[in-house]
């Protein structure tokens, strides 16, 4: 077939450019507005066919539903379109650079997805007879082995569901160990730069939280910490590399001091990506550390989870690790649960979760580890650190980098909002970056730096991608310094302009109300 070009203009020079007019539909070509399912669907429409139910008497105990639930359905074709349209209003790593500090948004290999979906992993029940799921236990055991070897720690609890859940696991093990020796300590020390989950976890576990002061260099103040240690301190929670992107040089000294004072050392391992294959936390005196498989080991973030937060333990804490766990003996695996824990795991603090953890994340993480191998993982941390330092040194002449003078950073570079024109903030930088086609960095975290911007490129970005980002960020920073009103109004090109978060919180609308359509 050939195109009939008669009378068809083929050049665009006569077209007027300039401000885009509003469209009739509100759509803008590939950016399509999408109604809520409560506006487009109906309760009698469905995208799934079922065979008729066989005749059988009801045994519902007289509890038959009498009122409508109000769940709208869509046909399959409409469903696919609804979610496809919504997906296009999202930014993901697949689309571009996503330097969200502390979140390690690296490429998610598709082999991982394929392996997690093998029916032998995806379609097995957690309570199947143990003889029918030996391969699943082997996955858990092999992954546990990698984690123990990479961290130099003797034990690992696999069941925690995410980083914060892992923190809870570690802190509960600390408390159990102290209780076992009759030592009721009350305080956990946490640096101000720590992630919010650290103090929240310590409080959840019944501890009082006190700040550890930081040095001007952005590290734990060793002398102040030592001065605070005493018989009431159960332990410390230290992030290493820390959330300023710096390695805690004194980690071993910190651990020794805490141990000497009878406490334990929890390490937040969210930033393990910077040191995997280069440093073993076990060599630094750490007693417990969670590992975010959804960061360091590339399991996808899915718009907010699921994650997985296995916790490695020192000899001192291992006996208190939670149930259940997998134990291998002569090629046979078994589950240690409430039933058989008495045999040799009587001090476990118990179960944190139904079943045995995030199997779907285990298969992905193991696939990733096998793909990279020991040599690849070492290269991962080296490239992650190289990329971050490259960013630090490419921006420090235009952005205030409070800790840059003290030396290299690890996997992420931290900047502040110093020097922007009056009224211009980190938020404006973020929104400007959105218009330039990038996901912004982490903003306003850690709290120790004013208007913090935490940039974590990860190892899966190319030099070209980083150069482009640096160029765009320098441009946006220049706008913030000169007080460019356009930046204040950014983003201009995203599916939505700035959203009113104050209004959302003042009069929360958390579910769709049918009356809205009438209004």
């Amino acid at each position: 077939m050939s195109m009939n070009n008669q009378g068809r203009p083929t050049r665009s020079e006569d077209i007027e450019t300039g401000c885009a007019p509003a469209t009739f539909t509100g759509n803008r070509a590939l950016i399509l507005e999408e109604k809520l399912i409560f506006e487009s669907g109906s309760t009698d429409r469905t995208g799934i066919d079922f065979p008729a139910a066989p005749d059988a008497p009801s045994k519902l105990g007289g509890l038959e539903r009498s009122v409508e639930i109000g769940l709208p359905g869509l046909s399959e074709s409409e469903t696919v379109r609804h979610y496809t349209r919504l997906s296009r209003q999202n930014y993901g790593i697949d689309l571009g650079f996503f330097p969200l500090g502390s979140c390690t948004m690296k490429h998610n290999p598709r082999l991982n997805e394929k392996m997690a979906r093998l029916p032998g992993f995806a379609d097995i029940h957690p309570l199947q007879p143990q003889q029918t799921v030996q391969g699943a236990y082997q996955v858990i055991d092999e992954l546990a082995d990698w984690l123990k070897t990479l961290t130099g720690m003797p034990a690992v609890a696999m069941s925690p569901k995410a980083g914060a859940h892992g923190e809870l696991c570690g802190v509960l093990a600390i408390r159990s160990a102290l209780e076992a020796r009759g030592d009721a300590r009350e305080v956990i020390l946490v640096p101000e730069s720590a992630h919010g989950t650290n103090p929240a976890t310590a409080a959840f576990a019944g501890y009082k939280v006190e700040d550890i002061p930081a040095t001007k260099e952005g590290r734990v103040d060793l002398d102040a910490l030592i001065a605070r240690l005493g018989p009431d301190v159960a332990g410390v929670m230290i992030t290493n590399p820390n959330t300023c992107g710096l390695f805690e040089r004194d980690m071993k000294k910190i651990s020794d001091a805490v141990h000497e004072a009878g406490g334990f050392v929890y390490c937040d391992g969210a930033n393990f990506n910077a040191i995997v294959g280069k440093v073993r936390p076990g060599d630094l005196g750490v007693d417990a550390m969670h590992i975010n498989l959804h960061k360091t080991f590339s399991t996808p973030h899915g718009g907010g989870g699921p994650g997985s937060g296995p916790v490695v333990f020192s000899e001192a804490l291992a006996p208190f690790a939670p149930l259940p766990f997998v134990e291998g003996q002569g090629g046979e695996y078994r589950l240690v649960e409430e039933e058989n824990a008495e045999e040799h795991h009587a001090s476990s603090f118990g179960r944190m979760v139904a079943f045995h953890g995030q199997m779907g994340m285990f298969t992905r993480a193991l696939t990733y580890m096998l793909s990279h191998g020991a040599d690849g993982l070492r290269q991962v941390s080296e490239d992650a650190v190289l990329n971050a330092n490259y960013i630090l040194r490419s921006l420090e002449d235009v952005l205030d980098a409070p800790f840059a003078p003290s030396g290299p950073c690890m996997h992420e570079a931290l900047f502040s909002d110093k020097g922007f024109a009056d009224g211009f903030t980190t938020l404006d930088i973020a929104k400007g970056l959105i218009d330039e086609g990038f996901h912004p960095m982490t903003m306003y975290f850690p709290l120790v730096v004013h208007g913090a911007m935490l940039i974590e490129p990860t190892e899966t970005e190319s030099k070209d991608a980083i150069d482009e980002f640096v160029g765009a960020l320098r441009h946006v920073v220049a706008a913030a310094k000169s007080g460019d009103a356009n930046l204040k109004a950014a983003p201009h090109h995203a599916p939505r302009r700035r959203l009113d978060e104050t209004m959302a919180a003042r009069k929360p609308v958390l579910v769709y109300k049918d009356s809205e359509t009438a209004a």
Partner: protein
Amino acid sequence: MRYLPLTPDDRDAMLARIGVASVDDLFSDVPEEARLTGTIRDLPDHASEMAVERHMQKLANKNLVAGSVPFFLGAGAYRHHVPSSVDHLIQRGEFLTAYTPYQPEIAQGTLQVLFEFQTQVARLFGCDVANASMYDGSTACWEAITMAGRITRRKKALLSNGLHPHYVSVANSMARFTGDDVISSAPELSAKTDIADLIDMIDAETSCVVVQYPDILGRMEDLTALAAKAQEAGALLVAVVTEPVALGAVKSPGEMGADIVVGEGQSLGVGLQFGGPYVGLFACKQKYVRQMPGRLCGETVDAEGKRGFVLTLSTREQHIRREKATSNICTNSGLCALAFSIHMTLLGEKGLRDLAQLNHAKAVKAAQQLAQIDGVSVVNDSFFNEFTVILPVDAREAVRELADRSILGGVSLGRLYPNESELSHALLITVTETCTDADVDALVSALREVLS
């Protein structure tokens, strides 16, 4: 290495810009004695896709796939048919590879999904509001207990003996540290639940009563009186739903007065996955919304007045509140919530009712067939798609012998309650739409053989 784009030339150019001679100089803050030289021994080096796939497939082959045999397990994890479009849609990179929607202007996809998800969950549970998901049902259950404690300022939680034993275990482990008083016991093999006993046990110290619906033995009873009694005493009723499909057939806990309804959403969209990742559902009455754990998505407008969605009420959360937060949860179960929501959208009300009816009718027929085996009796008067039978032999043994015949016949209560000898002959059997008549016939005849 296929996931690493930097070339040796790139690395050299970047080191030059940084002003160091080698990558090792960037690790100068790591004390010498803690630095590893060379790669870690005992671990293999990198491998091709092909080699990795071969290894993983070998491990997968060692497992007996649920879908390859007659399959009747439940007890908090249910095997339902997940339509193909669900897995296709959740693998769109814009959903799969996004983070928590901290930048709402470029995360409206995730946010609108969460708003729809919250609405679906709230309506299904008969509650005013729902959050954007928890890790799973068991952790959602514990969070509900702590939330009730914050609201009532009381510390005693009465757990129904029909609550999933793993959920009870989680609550017991946590309560040991928080100082909460958790009262629980093992279920009795009778047709009646312990609702009447729970009503008697409520007192002025009770913060909440936690009851599973349908319960661990599959039984269901009206919760209205229990809710009223709890509230009269200043306590809350927390209802736990591990099989949300049931609510296509029976009244929701919210309709019967529950204050907080939590659940496991794995039944829809997520699959068995050997226990995780799953998706915790969390809903409650409007008046308790500021005590909820976890993320909440809310509606707002943008600078041009267009409707949009954002994460909201975050002053409850760890990143703002730190040690005063309602929970320490951060990453939740977003992608599983998406899968749940897509599956629910495909079903719609009609589909959910049809699915529920199909499950129930198949289960009723299977129970009738099983009851005809000599020595086998059904405990339940009421059930949805899961019921308990008593065997003349130890049920764990029977399950193993059925597995030897390539039938996954159910969950023995001995596995769930190893220390309760009175429960050792009980077997929990679940029949969903995925079980064919031939599957049920195979179970019945294999069980006859095992028992003969």
